[in-house]
């Protein structure tokens, strides 16, 4: 193999593939990424046997071939390279020679023969979605999944395809985020799947540097996301997602519209006085929202935030992190906080769109 390509292209490609690679895997080749010439471009692949990533970068192919090299090493080397172009050439003994102006390097690699085959999905795409839309939908939901894997189902992200919509949901049993994303055309059927959180966060990172449309494929317990230059394939989580829709209340007693930034400031101020419990009291009166917190050790704080309030007076105790998680990931200027009482789920929705709902349980003392 002999190819020449710009450092920027190579760097971008390496960024995409190198994160899924583990280190210290007993099977050496799994710590490597595969470089391969593929129809006039360079294909980079990596896998941890759970997620596989392929990405293609442009370059001048002088000689076809393939080789694997340690992901961490080549990634750090290329990141550090101040030059603009680099020539990659595989030599005997599976060594990769990198030539770039004054930089002469040989990296010891392994034969491409031993590199895992990343499963192929040849079907028609199941659904197509705008990259920006999918990115926003992920941004607003994925942090709500359970970090703990005792219940594999809720450690993942739910995606329910129906007509031209995907319901994307994540919950850890104390809070729930649901976003409805629009597909570019109706999906080829209805389908409900659970994706590992890791897969979704990788997809999200790739979406950050992608544009255009994303194609989603399914085959035998696998999902494939096809971005413009990149493919991400992952297993799905087996099992059925809890029927979360039944916990979303239909009606609320109090609805208060508040400026998002102001509410965040108030919560952050209160947070300093709830260092151990994370509990802050949120009280809604006709003239606004009052956030209070107190601790024996630190002291206490009360902040009032102006809000437009409809309905009864109300108050409840929340974990401030659960509120901030949601508020920080929205971009609207104002949001609506909806409450029933101090023991029923409360909701946060952004003003101006109805495709997002965040449900959070109050804390019972």
């Amino acid at each position, binding site marked *: 193999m002999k190819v020449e390509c710009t450092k920027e292209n190579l760097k971008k490609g390496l960024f995409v593939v190198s994160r899924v690679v583990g280190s210290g*895997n*007993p*099977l*050496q080749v*799994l710590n490597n990424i595969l470089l391969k010439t593929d129809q006039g471009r360079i294909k980079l692949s990596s*896998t941890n*046997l*759970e997620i*596989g990533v392929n990405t293609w970068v442009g370059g001048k192919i002088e000689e076809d071939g393939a080789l694997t090299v340690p992901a961490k090493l080549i990634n750090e080397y290329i990141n550090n390279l101040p030059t603009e172009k680099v020539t990659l050439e595989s030599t005997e003994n599976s060594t990769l020679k990198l030539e770039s102006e004054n930089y002469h390097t040989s990296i010891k690699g392994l034969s491409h023969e031993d590199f*895992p*085959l*990343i*499963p192929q999905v040849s079907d028609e795409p199941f659904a197509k979605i705008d990259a920006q839309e999918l990115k926003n939908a992920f941004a607003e939901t994925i942090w709500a999944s359970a970090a*703990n*894997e*005792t219940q*594999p189902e809720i*450690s993942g992200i739910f995606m329910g395809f129906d007509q031209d919509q995907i319901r994307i949901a994540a919950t850890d049993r104390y809070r729930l985020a649901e976003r409805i994303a629009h597909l570019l055309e109706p999906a080829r059927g209805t389908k409900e799947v659970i994706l590992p959180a890791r897969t979704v966060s990788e997809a999200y990172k790739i979406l950050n540097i992608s544009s255009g449309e994303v194609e989603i494929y399914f085959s*035998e*317990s*696998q999902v494939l996301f096809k971005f413009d230059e990149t493919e991400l*394939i992952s*297993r799905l*989580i*087996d099992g059925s997602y809890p029927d979360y829709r039944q916990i979303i209340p239909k009606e609320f007693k109090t609805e208060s519209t508040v400026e998002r930034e102001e509410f965040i400031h108030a919560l952050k101020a209160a947070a300093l006085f709830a260092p151990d419990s994370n509990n802050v009291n949120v009280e809604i009166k006709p003239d606004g929202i009052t956030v209070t917190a107190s601790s024996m050790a630190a002291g206490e704080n009360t902040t009032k935030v102006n809000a437009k309030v409809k309905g009864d007076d109300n108050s409840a105790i929340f974990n401030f992190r659960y509120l901030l998680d949601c508020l920080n990931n929205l971009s609207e200027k104002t949001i609506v906080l909806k409450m029933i009482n101090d023991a029923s789920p409360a909701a946060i929705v952004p003003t101006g769109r109805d495709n997002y709902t965040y449900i959070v349980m109050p804390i019972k003392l």
Partner: protein
Amino acid sequence: MTNQQLWQAILGNLELSLSKANFTTWFKSTSIIEKSDIGIVVGVPNAFTKEWLQNKYHQDILKALKAIAAEIKEVKYQIVSPMYVSPQTTKEVSRIAPAAKKAENTTLNPKYSFNTFIVGSNNQLAHAASLAVSKKPGTVYNPLFIYGGVGLGKTHLMQAVGAEMLKRDPNAKILYVTSEKFTNEFVSAVQTGKTEHFKNIYRSVDILLVDDIQFLAGREGTQEEFFHTFNALHQNNKQVVMTSDRLPKEIPAIEERLVSRFEWGMIADIQAPDLETRLAILKTKVKEKNYTVELEILTYIAETIQSNIRELEGALNRLMVYCQLNNTRPTIEQVKSILVNVITPPKKRGVSAKKIIEVVSDFYNVTPEDLLKQSRKKEYVNPRQIAMYIIRKELETSLPSIGEFFGGRDHTTVIHAIDKIERIIKERVALKQEIELIRDRIYLN
């Protein structure tokens, strides 16, 4: 040949020709899931493994198969319910899980629950910690280490944690073992080469309850295994609860790294119950068993039996059996005569200075000769003084003869020893507890 045996035979064959890393990466969590006369279906954990076996190892698998079962010509691959972290035999565990779960959870004795546990000032902390742990297993105090003398309710509390968890989540995998059982199972797993299975059982539980952890002392292999089990569980935020008759650092011959882990979460002690608590315990027992006993009698029992709840229950049972046999209601006089053996037990019978020295030296991991000889090493002096103290208190032997016994020491030496121990007991609860434990042991046999 069962499917499993067949697959094991094939794996054994393949293992020879592959590197270890290759073998474990590609063949872990595989099995034969279907077998007909001419073909087998191999279950694989993910699509990567499927592709790889299909494209790279298919010929090798066929060849191995031919050597063992020539009639089978066809091998297919199928992805079966991929488990999240896939340790070697996840599938096996998941298949046996329902049965095993039942067995594990029945290790809990249903009579031990928080409802039947009587809280007094002596066990408040341990009770509160256990309750907190049962509410939020794995997050608040992990590990929870409960220590205290015999018959004070350590096992009760520990099992109550398990029972409470089970109430909240009937699917929780709870495993209660004595450290004796842990050791035996580990040893037999090593002997039969089933360590993997052993590990899977212990590392897949949601809460591990280990009773009498002090018996791990001196068993190095088991300690190491326990160390790894502990780490695996702790890392995954699974609760570990242990009991012992003394503080972690006072357990002799146990590795430092284990001690530091035991001390990591929360250490709660259980002391001997005070009079009110003892009375409350008796009242509950009476109610539980539907006996009719006057308060006066209960008070008498509670006043006279002071240290051990098991004895307390024993005395009550003895009394009740006597009354049922003779069809009388107990009077205070009867109680005194019935319980005379229990209350002023023939303790002194069979207990000699020699026996006390043996128990003390065993407790502190020295030899009886060490106590008798003329060495002033610190590790001998302290046990020697404790032994003198106990002999004096229990046997009321005269000071000069105690001195005589300990290699002809002067009686003033003995006085000094007893004074010193008495002083330290007042300052350090731990020592008091140690001495209680030694006493218990002396009279145990």
